[in-house]
């Protein structure tokens, strides 16, 4: 193992520890914000925003997506398209509060 390689891993480890601290802090923030009993649309927006930031940190740094190959990005982009379509499906099949048959 070269000293460059060891230094590279050490740098990675420091990033992991920083991300760990950020994830812990964001978890506490999520719980504290929920205590304010904000209106549902705002509460949902804040909770999902914080969850998205936390999820991005895990994906980018722990799963190394920040420096992954193009093929992996392509697979995930395709997955994201279908995932969004899946989540949007309930919205487009309901009209004026009634199911479209």
């Amino acid at each position, binding site marked *: 193992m070269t000293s460059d390689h060891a230094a590279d891993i050490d740098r990675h480890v420091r990033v992991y520890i920083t991300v760990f601290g950020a994830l812990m802090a964001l978890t506490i923030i999520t719980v504290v914000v929920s205590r304010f009993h904000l209106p549902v649309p705002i509460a949902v927006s804040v909770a999902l925003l914080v969850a998205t930031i936390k999820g991005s940190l*895990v994906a980018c740094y722990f799963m190394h997506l920040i420096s992954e190959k193009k093929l992996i990005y392509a697979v995930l982009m395709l*997955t994201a398209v279908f995932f969004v379509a899946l989540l949007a*499906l309930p919205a487009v099949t309901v009209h004026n509060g009634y199911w479209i048959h």
Partner: protein
Amino acid sequence: MDIPYTVEVRRDTGLTNGKIGIWLFLASEVMLFGALFASYILIRTGAPSWPRGDTILNVPLATFNTLVLISSSVTMVMAWASLMRHRFGTFRIYMGATILLGFVFLVVKYFEYSHKFENGLYPSTNNFLAIYFTLTGLHMLHVFGGMMVNAYFLGPGSKLWKTNPEWFTNRVEHSGLFWHFVDLVWIFLFPTLYLL
């Protein structure tokens, strides 16, 4: 016959086969949990009223479990980093900690579930509990599955380190990707079910 491209990368993809395989599997997992999240949205928006999660569920326990699972993600990535530095002893400590934290998560969920059943709250009680038990139950199965794979790499699977350390490191990385995915799913489940 040897399995091809376990250590050396394929020229056409720039990746090992194992790396592509685990990401394709995770893509299918996104769709599995995506279908259940879509069901949750469908049921919640269609319901005349919906309870706040914290009126039924135990938020302090779930917060503790969130911190446990995040910690396990860190120990998992540190286990991989230890192998990258050729420190097998440190790898064993971090991998053991990851499995232990996964076990703590499951024990806490056991107490959560037991408390619900003691109070007569079952999946059949209402739609909220039905989607709660379905989502968290499936997630728990994933935690258990990840623990089994990690236990294999800590135990009998670790023999590979002596003969082919690079392949073993790649295997641990792939197992770690699954474990982080399980953590990522919980990051979204926690606010969705417990706080909103």
